[in-house]
């Protein structure tokens, strides 16, 4: 981000250039590869909204459309749309449609939902979307290097938390905020997800993951709204990432994608797992 400030460009431009340097590829090739994820993102949102079927387990599917079709009762239209987009993408993932892992498949709805909702709001062009995605990827890369993006290593904070930080950075980029606001938005988004466990029912990326994507999209918007209003984080973003790493390491293995505790170990969670396990071996 210091580099971005020094050159007065978006952190996304720096991220693209660093990737080109480390991979030995041309800047334009790297740019094009990110640009090509946009139609996949958009299609995953559209297909998630358009497909009413259930996932193989029957646990999720069809909820994104319900949310999308309803007149907002309490939320603003942008926030409600973002939540619907995020659930749509996560449902598409659960139903074995094509998605972009971002940073993981389980958290794949948050970044596209926020980027699409904010992008529509500000009238972003394709170039802006690509740049914002590079900004998001750059932030995700920093978290991956200094903490983790795997639920099995750091719990859900590592997946949905990182996604929220990435989405916050992308949103600030699209809104034309400063890098200072960006750092604040990322820190605020991450801080509020610290400690989140990964305890999916029956080990599937469905409950609570799909709806959680919707929640985290709105959560990200709150962090962005705060940062754009000039609210500052008391703990600098680098230290928040370090805290995330420490919390992940302290988290018991039963709450890191093993489905041994938490929601997975509830009476209902176990009943669902038993039922699916019997069906699993039915060849």
């Amino acid at each position, binding site marked *: 981000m210091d580099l971005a400030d020094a050159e007065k460009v978006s952190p996304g431009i720096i991220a693209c250039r660093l990737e080109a340097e480390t991979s030995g590829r041309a800047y334009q090739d790297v740019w094009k590869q*990110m640009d090509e994820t946009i139609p996949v993102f958009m299609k995953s949102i559209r297909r998630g909204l358009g497909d009413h079927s259930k*996932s193989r387990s029957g646990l999720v599917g069809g909820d994104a459309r319900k949310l999308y079709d309803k007149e907002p009762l309490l939320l603003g239209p942008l926030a409600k749309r973002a939540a619907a987009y995020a659930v749509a993408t996560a449902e598409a993932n659960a139903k*074995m449609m094509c998605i972009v892992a971002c*940073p993981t498949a389980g958290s794949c709805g948050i970044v596209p939902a926020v980027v699409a909702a904010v992008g529509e709001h500000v009238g972003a062009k394709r170039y802006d979307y690509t740049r914002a995605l590079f900004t998001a990827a750059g932030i995700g890369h920093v978290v*991956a290097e200094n903490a983790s993006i795997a639920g099995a290593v750091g719990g859900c904070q590592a997946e949905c938390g990182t996604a929220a930080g990435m989405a916050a950075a992308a949103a600030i980029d699209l809104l034309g905020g400063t890098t200072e606001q960006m750092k604040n938005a990322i820190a605020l988004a991450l801080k509020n997800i610290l400690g989140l466990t990964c305890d999916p029912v029956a*080990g599937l990326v469905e409950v609570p993951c799909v709806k959680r994507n919707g929640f985290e999209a709105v959560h990200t918007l709150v962090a962005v709204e705060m940062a754009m209003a000039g609210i500052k984080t008391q703990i600098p973003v680098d230290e928040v990432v370090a805290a995330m790493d420490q919390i992940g390491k302290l988290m018991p293995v039963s709450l890191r994608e093993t489905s041994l505790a938490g929601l997975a170990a509830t009476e209902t969670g176990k009943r669902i797992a038993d039922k699916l396990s019997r069906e699993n071996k039915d060849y």
Partner: protein
Amino acid sequence: MGIFDIIGPIMIGPSSSHTAGAARIGQLARLILNDELTAADITLYGSFAKTGRGHGTDKALVAGLMGYGPDSIVIRNAIETARKNGIKIHFFFSEEDAGHPNTAKILAYGTNDRKVEVVGRSLGGGRVMITSINGYAVAITGEENTLLTHHKDVPGIVASVSRVLADEYVNISNMRVFRKNKGVDAVMIIHTDDPITEACKQKILACNPNIVNVMTLKKV
């Protein structure tokens, strides 16, 4: 880890380890078989055995074995597609500890009694490692161009093979040699910057009588 490990891979859901990784393991097994697939016996271990079906691990492995990648829509109906093409697929679910929670063992059959046993692990984020081929311990990720030889454990194999590569102007990025027992069967894995051509492969096969078999994998 690069930027496109963060935004990416583009994949069929729902899980980068259980779906995208499984497709990659299947794809690599197919490349190692190096033949048309006629049948496969697939054993799933650990988390693959427990939650594999809900994650489409079974479908993804079969799609990979048919040559399709993690972003191929074929994954959704891979098992039906395989059956339609006369490919016999059998699944086994093991309670054994395979040393890694996301492990699959694939016995893949080609034409003319050709078969190969491949064990692969899904490491997360869609990245994988083949850990065994026909009982030989190996470490192949498919992220680099790979040359693999089966040979007798005698002096001079490394020299013979590296001579051919030098003549063909292929640069080696790293290499490892494994053996089951001293003086018996051994395996060498060489990663190269450039892909290895069919002509180069034939030269390696001919360069030393103690080399039994040569496989090449282009990076995927």
